[in-house]
């Protein structure tokens, strides 16, 4: 640092970045370039593609059309009988049930964590976080071993003599997918709830009880309103990825349940039908934009990400 060149470089650097606008330019421009090239451009192109047709030689025909959207809902019967509409509806249903289930399961645990410190907290949070950090694919696969006619649940039940035939509820299908997705995304709900319960002043709860409110009333009038931001952001973080889920329905549905992510993937991978795929993807994008728009009415973006 004491050498002549070291000093000049140092001085030059200092001079260059003594101006605010230059500092801003240096810190901001790399990520802006990156986001424009690898996020905005691809997404814009995808939206454009959803209004274009692709011919048999995979060339884009640059004439705006609504054909792709029409095709999504075209079939022998009315639009609600098309496979696209059915799988869209099914995806909403699965994502919604998963979200509610996660909320119901996570709340007691988050409450317990917020009220307990020390070793109990550390051990429980470790036991929750480890599956959470384990690869998503591995977790989906671990449930794949549990379900099915010869899966761990059914084979154990039969071995124990509790049932003689594999139980249908433990076969692959909608239930299995919901269980797998809840297992996968439940920690987001837990952590969001914990974050808002942890900031909660529990003397308010005691005050409400002292003033004669019942437990149910305290929960409804004191606790719930205060943890609402946590509930909303947690729900968003479970609902959104569940809606676009791909691996879990693939493994745990075993072809019986077609969620929208799979439907798009099949068309793109087997036919490179990028026009159809783009149009179908718009339904996921718009659904998610709507979910966020609703959520932002109640919470700020700061509550969602901690930024």
């Amino acid at each position, binding site marked *: 640092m004491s050498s002549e060149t070291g000093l000049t470089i140092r001085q030059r650097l200092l001079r260059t970045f003594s101006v605010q606008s230059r500092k801003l330019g240096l810190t901001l421009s790399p990520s802006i370039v990156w986001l424009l090239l690898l996020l905005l451009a691809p997404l814009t192109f995808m939206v454009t593609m959803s209004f274009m047709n692709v011919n048999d030689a995979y060339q884009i025909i640059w004439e705006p059309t609504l054909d792709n959207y029409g095709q999504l809902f075209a079939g022998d019967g009315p639009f609600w009988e098309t496979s696209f509409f059915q799988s869209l509806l099914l995806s909403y249903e699965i994502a919604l049930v998963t979200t509610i289930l996660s909320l119901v399961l996570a709340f007691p645990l988050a409450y317990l964590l917020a009220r307990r410190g020390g070793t109990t907290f550390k051990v429980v949070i470790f*036991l929750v976080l480890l599956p959470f950090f384990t690869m998503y694919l*591995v977790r989906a696969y671990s449930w794949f071993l549990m379900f099915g006619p010869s899966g761990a649940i059914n084979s154990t039940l039969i071995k124990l003599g509790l049932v003689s035939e594999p139980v249908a509820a433990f076969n692959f299908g909608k239930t299995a997918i919901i269980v797998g997705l809840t297992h996968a995304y439940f920690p987001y709900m837990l952590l969001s709830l914990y974050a808002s319960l942890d900031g909660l002043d529990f003397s308010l709860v005691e005050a409400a009880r002292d003033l004669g409110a019942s437990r149910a009333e305290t929960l409804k009038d004191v606790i719930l309103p205060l943890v609402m931001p946590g509930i909303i952001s947690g729900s968003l973080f479970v609902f959104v990825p569940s809606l676009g889920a791909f691996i879990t329905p693939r493994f745990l549905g075993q072809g019986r349940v077609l969620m929208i992510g799979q439907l798009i993937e099949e068309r793109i991978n087997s036919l490179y039908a990028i026009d159809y795929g783009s149009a179908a993807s718009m339904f996921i994008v718009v659904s998610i934009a709507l979910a966020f728009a609703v959520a932002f009415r109640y919470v700020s973006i700061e509550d969602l990400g901690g930024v």
Partner: protein
Amino acid sequence: MATETDGAVDTGTLGAIFGDEQKEKILKYSLYAIAGALLVFLWIPLVVMVVLSFAVNASTFFPFRGFTLAHYTATFADEALMSALWNSVQIATISATIATILGVLASFALARYDFPYKEVYRTFGILPMVIPGVVLGIALLIYFRTLLGVTPGFVTVVLTHSVYGFPFVLLIVTSRLYTFDESLEEAARDLGADPLTVFRDVTLPVVLPAVGAGFLFAWIRSFEDFIRAFFVRGTMDVLTTSMFSMIKYGTAPKMNAISSFIVFVIAVVLAVAMNVGNVTEYVAGTEGDS
């Protein structure tokens, strides 16, 4: 725990209070019961998988034929799988490095300066984390192949993951910078330190743990990502896509072994990380998906 159960002794007064205490107890134990049941739910499939990874008969428990390490030996001898693992490690490291550099710079811009459309920029920066993998994967595949004419492969996966990892770094580092007391920097400057020294001696030590956590998150997200890599990988295999084909074509023994191995590694890393820094603080609000 012990102190709370002791409190129940003090109930010799009114019947109503006694009933209330009873209710309190029931409520507390049912809370513990629910929490216990949840932990079982979270753990049981993983435990089953680990047990099966050591079982001779790798796909079901019954009939049970004893334990073996053969599946692990076969897995680590599988050259295609190991090269896919190596690809994943390289991709995760390069893309997390890019994400960290971009993310740290952007965090300073967000936390320290005002500029037009700041909120738009912030929302846009978080988007890669929120947008479903299927959509981002397909959008980038179409973009690379059709618009840019790039053949999907190693580079396209790195680029994709560098965008995907960016929000994790951004979120963690910005929240650290927001809680950082800037008067410390001013004090250092008043005492005669030049801006570079201030950055090195004051700012960096405070921000560094968050940068490390951001890098780790971006690395893990890249390493475990299947769907984005699946679309933009071309003919190259990464660990997750190899594992996916293993499940599809029914090679359970190796899949159990490699999966269980990953659980062991992550358990050790997490146990260490939790004792070194506050991991939970960073986890809340960072989101991933299929």
